[in-house]
């Protein structure tokens, strides 16, 4: 199997591709921090999938006589919050919300940014100027502030929070895709494809886009950490998920009221956000070394 993957002269494009993937994987494995990141991200995915079944209690069930129990209370290992809800169960169920926010944002932002960036880079001329001016305007905006203003206008809620974050996140991808496209546009193989009669749309989709993907994947992984933290910030301000949702930022907001007496209520969800976000950062950092060696 190894010999097949590392064959000097692969017999098919598939074999070559898998071989490259394998080499990349081996490089990633030589970086323990990146593997730790990968483990944290996989753990989030696992918990998002099966968390609600692992939860020992109903995340919304209030047991008022068991309010503010400290961690390590039997049956409530991470303690309970000010309404007597089990924090561990709420964290487990909140994983799904966090992953959902991340996936939704990426699903909106990456295609949008890629489309705008590749079209601007490939077309050049006034199309490029207009699209890049637009990108600059959104880049010039402080992201959190723009998201705040948008949510204020649209009304609080997790859908609007995702929309606001997505609207502030796409310009970075557009810039990136444009820079890559500009490098590729004059390449000989593009000229060859064009001479073979390929349409512009086909060139962009089949021959330019795939080559932008590595740097976009790196960027997206690093960005997810930022998305998680921003979404939690909106939740903390009461502009994202609404009570009684077990969203982690919202849980910190409710723990803030009892911070000085019951430290664990705000600490536990914060740790969860931190670990997941660190996981994406470590993984992205490692992926950058593998996929995008030009970056510092």
């Amino acid at each position, binding site marked *: 199997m190894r010999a097949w993957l590392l064959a000097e002269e692969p017999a098919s494009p598939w074999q070559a591709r898998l071989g490259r993937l394998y080499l990349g994987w081996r490089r990633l494995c030589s970086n323990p*921090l990146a593997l730790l990141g990968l483990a944290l991200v996989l753990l989030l995915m696992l918990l998002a999938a099966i968390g609600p079944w692992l939860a020992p209690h109903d995340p919304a069930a209030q047991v008022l006589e068991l309010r503010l129990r400290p961690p390590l209370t039997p049956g409530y290992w991470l303690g309970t919050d000010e309404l007597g809800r089990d924090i561990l169960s709420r964290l487990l169920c909140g994983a799904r919300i966090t992953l959902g926010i991340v996936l939704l944002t990426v699903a909106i932002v990456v295609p949008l940014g890629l489309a705008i960036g590749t079209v601007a880079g490939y077309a050049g001329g006034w199309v490029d100027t207009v699209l890049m*001016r*637009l990108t*600059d*305007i*959104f880049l*010039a*905006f*402080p*992201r*959190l*502030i*723009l998201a*705040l*203003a*948008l*949510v*204020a*206008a*649209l*009304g609080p809620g997790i859908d609007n929070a995702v929309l606001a974050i997505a609207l502030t996140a796409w310009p970075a991808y557009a810039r990136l895709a444009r820079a890559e496209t500009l490098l590729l546009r004059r390449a000989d193989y593009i000229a060859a494809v064009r001479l073979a009669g390929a349409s512009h749309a086909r060139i962009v989709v089949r021959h330019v886009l795939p080559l932008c993907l590595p740097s976009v994947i790196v960027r997206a992984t690093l960005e997810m*950490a*930022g998305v998680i*933290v921003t979404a*939690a*910030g909106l939740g*903390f*301000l*009461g*502009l994202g998920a609404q009570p009684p949702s077990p969203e982690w*930022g919202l849980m*910190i907001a409710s*723990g*803030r009221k009892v*911070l*000085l007496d019951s*430290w664990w209520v*705000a*600490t536990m969800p*914060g740790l969860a*956000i*931190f670990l997941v*976000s*660190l996981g*994406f*950062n*470590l993984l992205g*950092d490692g992926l950058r070394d593998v996929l995008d060696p030009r970056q*510092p």
Partner: protein
Amino acid sequence: MRPARLPGAVARRTLELAATFLGLLAVTFVIGRLVPIDPALALVGDRASASAHAQALHELGLDQPLWRQFLGYLGQVLQGDFGVSRLTSNPVAEDIARVFPATVELATLATLIGVLGGVPLGVIAALRQGTWVDHAVRVASLVGYSVPVFWFGLMGLLVFYARLDWVAGPGRLDLAYEGLVEPRSGLLLLDALLAGEWAVLVDAWRHIVLPASILGYFSMAYLARMTRAFMLEQLHQEYVLTARVKGLAEWRVVLRHALANAAVPLVTVIALSFGHLLEGSVLTEIVFAWPGLGSYLTQALMSADMNAVLGGTVVIGAIFVGLNLLADVLYRWLDPRVR
């Protein structure tokens, strides 16, 4: 080479940024129109007749075509008029001028902490590339990228205020010291120093040191990574080798040669990170009850005071654009090749 290029390039860049600022105003204008609140209805009440409603619409200028409304908005903003805040009944511009110094004070101190910590760390990491020092700095930076600032603030309050009592709690001053110093610059530390009120100075310091350190850590994380990258780029250049071969002391090679050249891109990065601190201060101010622009903005958000929200957004956006310009000018001024 040709000094005449500097003013021309700066003028072009200024024009570009003016266009960006115009776009920024267009975005805030559109956000303002997205609000599902009818201001005319709010004015006359829902039992008013259709003609009274139309009258109110006309008085507010809302019956005009959108582009005329935008021109009106543009004219107002350029005169520094953001309308009246519903929450405080003051002109928004006045409110912002009142709360802004508190934010500037916080962000400035945080930037100082970030530079004094981040630049040396980045230099050391670059010199010891691949060793445990480098990895430690890398992890410390990634932690800074991953921690939610508001949670970090809460944990800081919990440990350093509630448990250890090393610093004062939320707010800018203890109640007992409120109003003792005449606000000249609005920067409390500076005002207390000028007035010679040492007790106020100490109290203000005890209040600002924790939020500034928390914010400063984020700036430090960013600056350490950037410094490391810039330094590595310089240390691999041939002039560094020449300097070493010449027998210069290592500290001289590193500080006078490599760092001096790395400082050019670094200065622009510091200017930009100051802008990000203004943004990060929104959440920090909430946690520390810091009476700055961030607190003002969020209070306005909570009560759907759109004039205040958009005014604050425009001001912060304008500062961002200004810092971009400053970074660009500094870069051109410091780098003789661009000059």
